């Protein structure tokens, strides 16, 4: 892509970065006395629309996510450039569709199980799962869907079905990252895959799973030595730390020793640090990708704040769970 192609888009994105939540804005949200005050503060930052049902956090965050994708789609002219972000939604939808098909559930409330902004229409995935014919889906997804459905049909074990699809998700993200010409999207794919593998290894270790099971769970892609990680997960946490030592995740070892939640927070903060240089990038598509990730980050953050306020969590507890902001 010629760099001049994105000058307009990048300028608009940088302009819109001013509307992103700053660390001070987040602090105000944390200090808000209740969810109503959070709504008011967000409205001052331009969140929401008069057409939204009042007092509904999910409707608000869904609206903001729609707005983000609509904005980026308008600017890029081709949202498929960001497929590496959207594939996880497709596979989530595939998982939901298979489980609904297996339970022969066709309730009208099923829409709530599916995510928007994937690369494939939800209806296509639902139809494929309902008819047990996955040929209408891309090859990799069709193979994963077929295998997951058969596993579920033969074992009635939802976890095994999840393992097949989660692994396929990581392989798809890795493939999309490798296909992308953007270094940022490649790094995002690697980070996503590595983090998922580390989390899976830690969980398997905690549940004392057998090596054969762990090897089925971990995706053999990313920057880590996956066979070594799988072998370590079959031993103990110290072995996992040893595998991570000397890798890009060395600094996360201390977080892993604290908790998986602390590790997840470290990963989210790493992602923000990864995209932060894009604030000064004037020409390529990467600031658009960074904007999508920054918006997803702040939408997740707002979701967390709403959840804390609705459940009456103290501000300090909430603060410990917050992630860094992009601006």
């Amino acid at each position, binding site marked *: 892509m010629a760099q*001049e192609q994105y000058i*307009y888009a990048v*300028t*608009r994105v940088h302009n819109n970065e001013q509307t992103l939540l700053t660390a001070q804005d987040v602090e105000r949200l944390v200090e808000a006395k209740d969810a109503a005050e959070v709504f008011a503060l967000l409205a001052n930052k331009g969140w929401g629309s008069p057409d939204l049902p009042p007092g509904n956090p999910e409707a608000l965050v869904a609206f903001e996510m729609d707005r983000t994708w609509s904005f980026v789609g308008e600017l890029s002219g081709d949202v498929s450039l960001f497929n590496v972000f959207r594939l996880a939604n497709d596979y989530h939808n595939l998982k939901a569709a298979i489980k609904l098909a297996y339970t022969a559930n066709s309730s009208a409330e099923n829409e709530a199980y599916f995510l928007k902004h994937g690369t494939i229409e939800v209806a296509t995935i639902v139809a494929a799962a309902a008819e047990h014919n996955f040929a209408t889906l891309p090859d990799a997804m069709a193979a994963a869907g077929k295998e997951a459905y058969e596993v579920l049909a033969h074992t009635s074990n939802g976890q095994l079905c999840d393992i097949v699809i989660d692994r396929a998700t990581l392989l798809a993200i890795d493939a999309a990252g490798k296909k992308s010409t953007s270094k940022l999207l490649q790094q995002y794919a690697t980070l996503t895959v590595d983090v998922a593998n580390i989390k899976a290894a830690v969980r398997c270790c905690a549940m004392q799973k057998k090596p054969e099971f762990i090897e089925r769970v971990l995706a053999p892609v990313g920057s880590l030595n996956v066979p070594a990680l799988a072998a370590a997960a079959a031993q103990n946490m110290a072995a996992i730390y040893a595998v991570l030592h000397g890798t890009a995740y060395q600094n996360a070892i201390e977080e892993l020793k604290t908790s998986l939640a602390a590790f997840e927070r470290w990963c989210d903060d790493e992602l923000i640090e990864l995209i932060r240089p894009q604030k000064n990038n004037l*020409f390529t598509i990467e600031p658009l990708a960074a904007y999508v990730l920054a918006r997803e980050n702040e939408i997740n953050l707002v979701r967390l704040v709403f959840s804390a306020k609705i459940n009456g969590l103290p501000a300090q507890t909430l603060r410990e769970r917050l992630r860094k902001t992009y601006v």
Partner: protein
Amino acid sequence: MSNLGIIFAVLGMALAALLPGWGSAKGVGMAGQAGAGVLADNPSLFSKVLVLQLLPATQGIYGFLIAVIAMGNIGISGGDFNMSIAKGLAYLGACLPIAVVGFISAIHQAKTSIASMQLISKRPDQFGKSMLFPVMVEMYAILAVLVSFIAVNGVAGMAL
């Protein structure tokens, strides 16, 4: 072969008009895209954005100026095509500073202008400072046009 002198001289004149004009057209176009991006959300910044967009346009003007002076000195409009190869090459060399530096500086100035536009879109009060950055690039185009101006006029007086 006897016309090689005038051919070199006209080539120099053409390059002086062509390359900086090309660079300026590209630079103003790039800056225009960024300007449109700023105005989409901040229409009140129009005048400031316009100034920044126009900064890369000057190289094209400098190139045009040198080309016109060279045209006059060569005497091409008078139909006199007698010129030594040495003099023709001297005209070509005299035109090269603005041709090359004009092209390159226009592109770089456009990129700096775009960065400055993005700065004022976030901090409109920094317009004065933001304008200084692309103006710094202008200095090299001015040096090049001065060298070409002196050289083109100098070649005219040479008995080559």
